[in-house]
């Protein structure tokens, strides 16, 4: 499996799990859970593509973790910018787990997945 594809699949899985954890926030979230999971999954897929592509191009665990953390944080920030019906933002609750998901993606795509074969002249 290529690294970008691994990133997409893992990003989607972690996105679904990350979205579902919102259920623990309280019964009022249950009504919005489908939207949250879909949004979280799309976020995970986008992060997976970017992080997986970086892992495809560069073989460096520190770089993978840095990119994973930054992308996870950035995408989570974009999501957190949207307030709930009461106008309240959940920056910390969304951005910290989002960063952690990005770090996992960064680590996994650097450690696993097929690296492109080296081309010789």
């Amino acid at each position, binding site marked *: 499996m290529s690294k970008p594809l691994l990133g997409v699949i893992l990003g989607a899985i972690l996105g679904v799990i990350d979205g579902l954890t919102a259920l*623990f*926030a*309280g019964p009022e979230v249950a009504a919005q859970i489908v939207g949250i999971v879909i949004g979280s999954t799309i976020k995970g897929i986008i992060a997976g593509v970017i992080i997986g592509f970086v892992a495809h191009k560069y073989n460096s665990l520190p770089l993978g973790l840095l990119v994973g953390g930054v992308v996870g944080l950035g995408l989570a920030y974009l999501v957190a910018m949207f307030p709930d019906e009461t106008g309240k933002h959940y920056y910390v609750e969304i951005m*910290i*787990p989002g960063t*952690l998901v990005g770090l*996992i993606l960064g*680590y*996994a795509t650097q450690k696993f997945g097929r690296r492109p074969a080296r081309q010789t002249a």
Partner: protein
Amino acid sequence: MSNLSDDQMRRLRDLVDAPDLTGTRYRIERRIAVGGMATVYLAHDESLDRNVALKVLSLPDSGTDLAPRMLREARIVAQLEHPAIVPIHDVGTLSDGRVFYSMKFVQGQTLDQQVASQSNLNDRLRLFLRICDAVAFAHSRGVLHRDLKPSNIMVGAFGEALVMDWGIAANVRESGEARPAVASTAGSSPDPVTQDGVVIGTPGYMSPEQAAGSAKAVDHRTDVYGLGTVLYFMLTGRPPVSDSAAAVAIDRAIRGEITPPRSINSDVHRTLEAVCLKAIALRTEDRYDTVDALSRDISLYLDGEPVSARVERPWERAGRWINKYQFIVIIALVYIIVRFFFLLWRGL
């Protein structure tokens, strides 16, 4: 009259014992090592202006089989072009009839010296893999080393491993038999080191079949045993059978009386101990079937994967998995803790 010091005496003896290299392109610099059959010198190759190691038969051939054995050794090593096997440059006979050959001069330490200074076990195991690679290559060419031990392995200045001293090596393919061959250069007389009843090898490191003088039982798994003894030394700093009396060591080797590595060094992982003990099993059929199989288990251990020599318990498997994927486990735990923290925070 003043007495000569020990050092002066040693130099004088070296000078007297030094072979006459007249007619060759070599000039002796100093003696490096003395073996039972030959002496190794540091020599300078005048033609190519480089230092070489020169192995010279200790005594002129006087009807013994030493000269053919040394020629055979040179020819066997010459067949083995591998980065971890010292290359032979030249072979010849001195004016007094002594056979010699020149080879690459390796600057470094023998493995027994190097292990004492190399504290990282994983680095030692990676070095062991390179030694396995050289022996597996020799096997692929039909050559058995039969005297693998730490002092026969040099570790170069850049950490490269070099398998040395193929003096009692045998070429299995020369005879087409399953056991080590009769020396092709020894005329019609059979190679004595492959005859039944002759004990070859080094006490402390020799396999039970070698200790028993059972030449027919000697095959590639004898080298697996030899590699196992090298691994044992890397793990414990001692040979598997350590006894000052050779006869006792041989007897213990025959009976397979080996102290498990963890009894000497409790830091040795159970998995590594199992790999080592499988390599030095008493019966050849209980050992790894090939050097590659042994090498594969060490690679799997280094990669945090299960090995063929040991069946793990479920909690050991879980522990190994957690150890291997520490980062993911830690991040996942942090994620769970963070989520739990937010849950509590909102509930307040």
